[in-house]
């Protein structure tokens, strides 16, 4: 939300989180090197760098993958979600160091192109256990490059939110490739039960949190209400909606957030135009619906971002009958003004 693009959208809080990321990465690397020197003093510096940055990237990827579900389950995790973009780029840089040192150590001493060597040094593509695991890591790094290099609002706007989101959902493909990369690498090179055990715990954690969140979300999608004679849906009682907050309902296959503010009710589409954040999980700040993910704002009565910004979401008509709230499931065009209901 700006009138020109900035290098990095820093504020006081983001700077603090970035310092935590940098210190956390540094601390991990120091501890990893210290433990390696204590337990395997014969390890070469190159191998230590490859393993330290590789394992750091995997750890960060797990944190990135669990932030989303955790913040849906508990809003206290939302501040970490705000900084996920910087965490993602930092993770890519760690993975890049791992990949670059691996290529230098294993593929630059021959007389063939190093990238060609990654793909052809082990041609056992038909084998399950001896499959060339470095190729999987290379493909994952390519996906992470796509994601990191497009982690800027310019790309979100100009690739369109749909394409941008699709591109960034490829993180799950990258995660799968990385899991296989680590499993096969561990099998073929060191047969380390510790490495395999840690990865299994990580996979179970990521999968469980996604399943729990999906189950919770499915309750919203299963919402079923009787239509009255005019086709309006009864959704809830007005007291069920907290002040300056919203309740989310699925209406006509779309999620809608009904906000209560200043003794009024308004309904807008639940999906933020920025990165698809759940507007109904945000709150009213300075009279505007504020997305919990990145702070994009919309006026509740017309779904428009306050000038000079131009984002718009669809609006819905509400009615109050006693304490019961009814919604017209046929939404209006994005940015259409709808008179709020007084409650």
């Amino acid at each position, binding site marked *: 939300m700006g*009138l*020109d693009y*900035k*290098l990095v959208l820093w504020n006081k809080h983001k700077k603090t989180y970035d310092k935590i990321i940098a210190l956390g990465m540094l601390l991990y690397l120091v501890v990893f090197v210290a433990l390696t020197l204590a337990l395997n003093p014969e390890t070469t510096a190159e191998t230590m760098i490859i393993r330290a940055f590789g394992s750091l990237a995997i750890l960060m990827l797990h944190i990135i993958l669990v932030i989303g579900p955790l913040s849906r389950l508990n809003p206290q995790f939302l501040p970490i979600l705000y900084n996920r973009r910087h965490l993602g780029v930092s993770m890519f840089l760690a993975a890049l160091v791992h990949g670059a040192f691996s290529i230098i150590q294993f593929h630059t001493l021959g007389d063939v192109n190093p*990238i060609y060597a990654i793909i052809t040094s082990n041609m056992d593509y038909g084998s399950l256990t001896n499959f060339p695991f470095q190729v999987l890591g290379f493909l994952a790094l390519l996906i992470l*490059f796509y994601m990191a290099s497009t982690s800027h609002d*310019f790309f979100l706007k100009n*690739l369109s939110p749909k*394409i941008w989101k699709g591109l960034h959902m490829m993180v799950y493909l990258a995660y799968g490739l990385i899991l296989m990369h680590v499993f096969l690498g561990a099998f073929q090179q060191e047969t380390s039960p510790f490495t395999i055990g840690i990865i299994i715990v990580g996979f179970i954690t990521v999968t469980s949190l996604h399943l729990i969140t999906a189950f919770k979300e499915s309750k919203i999608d299963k919402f079923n209400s009787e239509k009255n004679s005019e086709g309006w849906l009864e959704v809830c009682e007005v007291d069920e909606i907290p002040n300056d907050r919203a309740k989310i309902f699925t209406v006509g296959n779309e999620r809608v957030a009904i906000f209560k503010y200043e003794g009024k009710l308004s309904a807008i589409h639940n999906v933020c135009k920025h990165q698809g954040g759940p507007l109904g999980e945000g709150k009213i700040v300075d009279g505007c619906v504020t997305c919990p993910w990145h702070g994009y704002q919309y006026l509740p009565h017309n779904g428009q971002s306050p000038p000079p910004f131009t984002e718009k979401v669809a609006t819905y008509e509400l009615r109050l009958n006693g304490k019961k709230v009814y919604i017209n499931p046929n939404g209006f065009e994005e940015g259409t003004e709808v008179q709020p209901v007084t409650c």
Partner: protein
Amino acid sequence: MDTIIMVFLIILVAYFSLGLLFGFYFIFLGASKVDPLMEDSKKKVRLLLLPGVIATWPFLIGKLFKSKPVD
């Protein structure tokens, strides 16, 4: 298998080479035509966008052709 690998690598090199050529044109000239916010954006921002433009040039080239001149 060798042929498949060679084809894959040629496509990869061609894709990123074209992306690099397009990228330099786009970040300094083309981007302002598709996005008015780029007009006042600094050189550092444009260079930061270069890797992403190289990666996603097929999407951006289409947008550039469809764009109308900014007044």
